[in-house]
């Protein structure tokens, strides 16, 4: 049995699966990091992912064009985030309540639209999903070649987004604005940065990524839409943001570890090891709690996360 686990094919397959499992979480984690760095906790994430998954699936099946489906998922993520921005940035309502509201609303809406369009068929409709893109030469590297360079296009994009978002956040004036708006919106306002606009744009951009993350689940990972397709991956992403200390690189690493455990769990089940799925689902949360206990004193929570910004309030 150890031999079965330690052979090359198993490891190749496992790393490949980890990358696939991690993809939607990387998208959602990066999106959520952009939101939270600007000071908004987007608990609508789970619902936005579900709407992304449903919209991507529906549009792809209708148009026959998978990329249009992905774009539609991004768009629906942006629209729902715009609603979030209206509630939390402009009206200054509780981010917890608004976010959970959007998740509940989106969950209902996704099922509603799906039912209207497809009714309740005995066999769920399926879409012809994306196929893996094999990168020449690199995929010939032993062990890691086939696992890392024979992936879906969205997986490559997710990986590329990690350094891109890091650079934007730390090396550009846009990133400086985003970080300042999350840390001290008054400071940003005082130097002429539009706090409301910055927060809104961050929500919308993050929402697009979260929506795309959802669509991966119905257009790559699976080829059908089920109401529980997200399966808590939005919440996992929130945990990964904390695990990664609001840093894109560390957050993505957390997502990869989650993907790895997820992939391992599936494979171990395949080998006939009787461990309930739930045990593995607990692992990322346990991991986050353990990591938080370790880093809690140094946790770089954006100082004004959850705090609405109001200009004409007495006592400034």
């Amino acid at each position: 049995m150890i031999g079965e686990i330690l052979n090359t094919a198993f490891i190749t397959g496992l790393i490949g699966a980890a990358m696939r499992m991690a993809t939607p979480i990387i998208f959602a984690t990066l999106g959520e990091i952009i939101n939270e760095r600007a000071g908004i906790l987007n608990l609508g994430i789970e619902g936005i992912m579900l709407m992304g998954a449903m919209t991507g699936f529906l549009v792809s099946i209708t148009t026959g064009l998978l990329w249009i489906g992905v774009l539609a998922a991004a768009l629906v993520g942006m629209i729902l985030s715009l609603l979030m921005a209206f509630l939390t940035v402009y009206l200054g309502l509780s981010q917890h309540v608004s976010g959970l509201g959007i998740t509940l609303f989106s969950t209902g809406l996704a099922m509603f639209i799906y039912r209207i369009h497809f009714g309740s068929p005995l066999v769920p409709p399926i879409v012809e999903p994306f196929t893996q893109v094999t990168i020449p030469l690199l995929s010939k590297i032993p062990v890691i070649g086939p696992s890392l360079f024979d992936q879906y296009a969205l997986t490559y994009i997710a990986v590329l987004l990690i350094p891109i978002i890091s650079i934007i956040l730390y090396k550009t004036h846009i990133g400086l604005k985003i970080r300042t708006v999350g840390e001290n919106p008054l400071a940003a306002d005082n130097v002429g940065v539009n706090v409301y606009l910055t927060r809104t744009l961050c929500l919308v951009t993050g929402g697009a990524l979260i929506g795309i993350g959802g669509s991966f689940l119905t257009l790559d990972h699976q080829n059908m839409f089920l109401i529980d397709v997200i399966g808590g991956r939005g919440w996992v992403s929130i945990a990964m943001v904390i695990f990664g200390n609001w840093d894109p690189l560390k957050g993505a690493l957390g997502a990869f570890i989650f993907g790895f455990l997820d992939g391992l769990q599936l494979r171990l089940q395949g080998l006939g090891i009787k461990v309930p799925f739930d045990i593995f689902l607990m692992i990322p949360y346990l991991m986050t709690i353990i990591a938080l206990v370790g880093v809690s004193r140094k946790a770089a929570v954006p100082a004004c996360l959850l705090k609405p910004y109001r200009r004409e309030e007495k006592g400034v």
Partner: protein
Amino acid sequence: MVTVTANQPVVEMQSITKQFLDVVANRNINFNLFPKEICALLGENGAGKTTLMNILFGYYTCDKGEIFIKGKKAELSSPRDAICRGVGMIHQHFTLVPSQSVLENIIIGTEMRKSGFLDLKAAKDKLLHLQERFGLHIDPEARIWTLAIGEQQRVEILKALYRDVEILIMDEPTAVLAPSEISDLFRTLKSLVQEGKSIVFITHKLKEVIAIADRIVVLRRGEVVAERRTGDTNLRELANLMVGRDVLERISRKKIPPGEPVLEIHNLAVSNDKGLEAVKDIKLVVRKNEILGIAGVSGNGQRELAETLFGIREPQKGTIKINGITLHSGSPVSAIKLGMARIPEDRIETGLMMDLSVEENLILETHVSPDFHKRGLLNFNKIHQFSNELIEGYGIMTSGRDAVTRSLSGGNLQKVILARELSGKPTLIVASQPTRGLDVGAMEYIHQRILQEKERGAAIILISEDLDEIFILSDRIVVMYEGQIMGDVQLEEASREQIGLWISGVKK
């Protein structure tokens, strides 16, 4: 292009009116600022100084009135509009991001970039050049949280200069500074004026006004009541103008010989939040009918000492005895039971529950008392009576005992704390910075109350940065410096020079 001549104002604010809900913060104010001058905007808390300047900075929009900057009418709807016109403002509470570097804090929003990336090198060069020119030195790479308050203020000034500000508004810039930092700041302001800047200096401290301003505009209850050249006025006149009555403190104090010891502190050592030793082996005794003033610049262990006495911080070693009974360390309940009244340094953070009513705050420490209960439930008849008496007795200005505490002004917040703490006839009062940030009227009231308590028989520790306050109230003065007691002297034998030396760490 309008040229600015020496007698033409750089800022003209005409008939400015601003109302918040039912409070008129500014009523028909005319204010001018002339080139190369330091103009002090003097007034009590709530006089409308900050509001007026927030309007000039575009942070608030005025309900009525017009603003001209350098001769041109200015529509200011956000700070960005003001910055474009050369107006910068440094708020009383700095607007810096602690986790970011000095450079990042300064350049944000200035769009210094090279093909989309932040051009940190060019920005740093510009900053270093400014530092050289104005003599404001600070490491551009340092994180804000590692800097002292005075240094953070320098960052704020550099932030304004980096934006080529010509008109600089400073809101209570000395409130948080140590005396040596204040003289540095004044030197900086003078050099800024020499370089052609114009400065508005918001304050309620009369001596500073005389020391730094060329011209003084006095606000009271949202209106301009007077304007003076510094040479043509004096402290007493300014005080009268500011509060509308004669208040330079002439408090009468009775000489009462101190009685038996009430508080005895033995070999007390306390660590601060970072685990470093903040209070080092302190011995102190305070007697009945005695006010012990603890002078010194904040950050020399006073806060940790007060918190230990309050029972909210555990000492490393040592004992605290009140009337001979040992204070159970780290237990606020023990402190209350032993008859200690606690007036904390930060009234908003630790003194009050801002979102509860005035009444609820008044019974915060005594709500468990059987007096306030009937058959296991709170006896509101008694509680209402109790809080009405206190509100009246202490002259707390509020719409009623049900008003949310947040709606009170600073002086009234402190009165709520005072009323709560003194209602139990404490044997020991520990007051930490009891008048910080309060206006002259409220300050005087609190001083009188503290003296009354002494006459009643309480032993009092007064921790204050304000030397005037220390000298007005104390019977005996000690100075804390780096966690140690520098000296211990009776009021009659104390000289300001001596205390001043102790405060700056010079022994002998």
